[in-house]
């Protein structure tokens, strides 16, 4: 077992399961990814997209059906989990209920035959890192959910693993605690400088934590990129939908000039940027609600007229549902002064109007 590495390489890692009716399906299909030392990677996708399968394959808790995993020049996908030495944080914490907090955290060290005299200070240090000093003697059942999750993190990092794996570690916490613990995870990652692979279905978590995001769907990687890239330039319509491009309109293509595309519907005509090659006459336009601006009738260029059908008050602004004369629905963020029934004109920047082929 090693404490450091420069590259973890997943090469076409595949995992097949027997599905309904005995038909096998690929829960994970040829995942190829290189994780560098100290990097924070988020595997992002809806449930069933294969992200947890990928994590279990890396941890050694699941056998691969195909592909290889390399830690620098050592092949590790044939090793059992106990020989890989990666720290893992589980969704439901998986703390040992019969052991005190200190015993839980020290478990990995005991398994490595670290001298008892050395275990105590290292456990103490880990407790300090997750801010749980003074709880060492308690049983997991006596802690709150957030504290339990921090014990789980301490238990995974105290063994100084080269790689930390986290499987939706925040999904069992309430909203406030989730944001606090998220910041905690970011801080710990900064202090330890250990490569981390983090599985989540929450795009905010992925965006705020990761150096790179791997967006997955049905076992297949859709896009790998830095958070601003995935957020601003989704590589396909699926990623766009998942990253919060709530407005998706199907329109006719009326012209193409390089990346620029002009499109038209019954009462909408827009210009946008093509993100994928367009083959047919129809195309999908994806726009984020917060990138649409409510203007007045004097504005021109990439505008849409409609009537406000619904208003959701959000404090700083409101979420508006705007319906055009032909019945197309737009979600828009606007001022709280706008009322239901108002007739409005909205405008969207051309470079924020993303065009994809229809799916």
């Amino acid at each position: 077992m090693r404490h450091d590495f420069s590259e973890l390489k997943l090469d076409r890692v595949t995992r097949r399961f027997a599905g309904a009716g005995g038909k096998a399906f690929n829960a994970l299909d040829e995942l190829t990814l290189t994780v560098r030392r100290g990097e924070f990677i988020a595997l992002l996708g809806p449930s069933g997209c294969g992200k947890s399968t990928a994590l279990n394959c890396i941890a050694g808790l699941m056998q691969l059906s195909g592909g290889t995993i390399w830690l620098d020049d050592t092949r590790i996908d044939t090793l059992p989990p106990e020989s890989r030495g990666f720290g893992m944080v589980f969704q439901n914490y998986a703390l040992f209920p019969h052991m005190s907090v200190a015993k839980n955290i020290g478990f990995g060290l005991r398994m490595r035959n670290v001298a008892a005299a050395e275990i105590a200070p290292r456990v103490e240090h880990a407790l300090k890192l997750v801010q749980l000093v003074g709880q060492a003697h308690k049983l997991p059942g006596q802690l709150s959910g957030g504290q339990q999750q921090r014990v789980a993190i301490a238990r995974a990092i105290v063994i100084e693993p080269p790689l930390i794996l986290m499987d939706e570690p925040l999904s069992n916490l309430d909203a406030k605690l989730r944001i606090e613990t998220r910041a905690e995870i970011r801080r710990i990652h900064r202090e330890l400088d250990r490569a981390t692979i983090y599985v989540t279905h929450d795009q905010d978590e992925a965006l705020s934590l990761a150096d790179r995001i791997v967006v997955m769907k049905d076992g297949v990687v859709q896009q790998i990129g830095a958070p601003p890239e995935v957020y601003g330039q989704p590589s396909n319509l699926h990623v766009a939908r998942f990253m919060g491009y709530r407005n998706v309109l199907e329109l006719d293509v009326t012209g193409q000039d390089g990346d620029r595309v002009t499109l038209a519907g019954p009462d909408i005509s827009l210009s946008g940027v093509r993100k994928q090659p367009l083959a047919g006459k129809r195309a999908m336009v994806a726009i984020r609600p917060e990138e649409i601006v409510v203007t007045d009738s004097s504005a021109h260029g990439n505008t849409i007229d409609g009537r406000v059908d619904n208003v959701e008050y959000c404090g700083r602004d409101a979420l508006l549902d705007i319906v055009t004369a032909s019945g197309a629905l737009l979600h828009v963020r606007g001022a709280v002064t706008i009322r239901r029934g108002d007739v409005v004109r909205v405008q969207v920047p051309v470079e924020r109007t993303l065009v994809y082929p229809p799916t």
Partner: protein
Amino acid sequence: MPASADTLARTPFDRTLLLVIPAAAFMLLLFVYPFLYGLALSFNPKEGGPLANYAHFFTTDNLWPTIWITLKLALPATLVNVGLALPIAFKMRVKTRYQRWVTTILVVPITLGTVLIAEGMLLYFGPKGWLSQFLQFAHLYEGPIRLTHNYWGVLISLVISGFPFAFLLILSYITGIDPVLARAAATLGADPKAQFRHIYLPLLAPGLAMCFCLAFVQAFSVFPSAVLLGSPAGPTRVISIAAYEAAFEQYDYSLASAIAMIMGFVQLIIVSAVLSLRNVFYRGPVSGGKG
């Protein structure tokens, strides 16, 4: 009048409590009353003072050794049953294609009565039984095989009839332990042996103690197989035989009651010793957190 007292007084009677009545009546009529009757009877001997029966038991050479004879059968049988059931149940904890078949085959003896098991064993293990004939036929062992009408016959029958109970009980305890705990231990460097020792065993300990108690009580009250498969006059003259003889051969119900009380007391000692050991271990939910 204070409001709290008022609400207390008006707390409606929970009528579901009435459901306890049949069970309570059952216990009272079929256990508590006969037990107290027997206890009183044991202090009313045919002759002598109130403790005469107990004095008789502990000074008579064919009575007091029955305690040891019974313990010598019941304790090893219990240890073997729990000891065999634990690793097999551990292997059977994960669902595989074979799990249901193996479990079914292991549990079948539950459906056989002790008498049926005894009959089968006499045919199979007896001096002219299949086992003996096969070994001689295959020239593996030429001598006579004595596995019936002695200590071993009774022990084997106790294992056959007791194992399924121990196995089912331990299987239910093991499957109750969240397998993610073992996976977590594995990522922390615990090989399968260490996972068993540090995770499964401590979490199973209270259940094993419970299983031991139930299996022991069952084995300690052995009667039919001790008669049919043992030598009830000698090495397998267990305590229940002594009680039976007192009651139905000497018609001394008082002495029989005293023997039954002693039998219960010995069981109580072993059971409370094991259960107090149980308190040493962690007892509580066996999952690793939320979800």
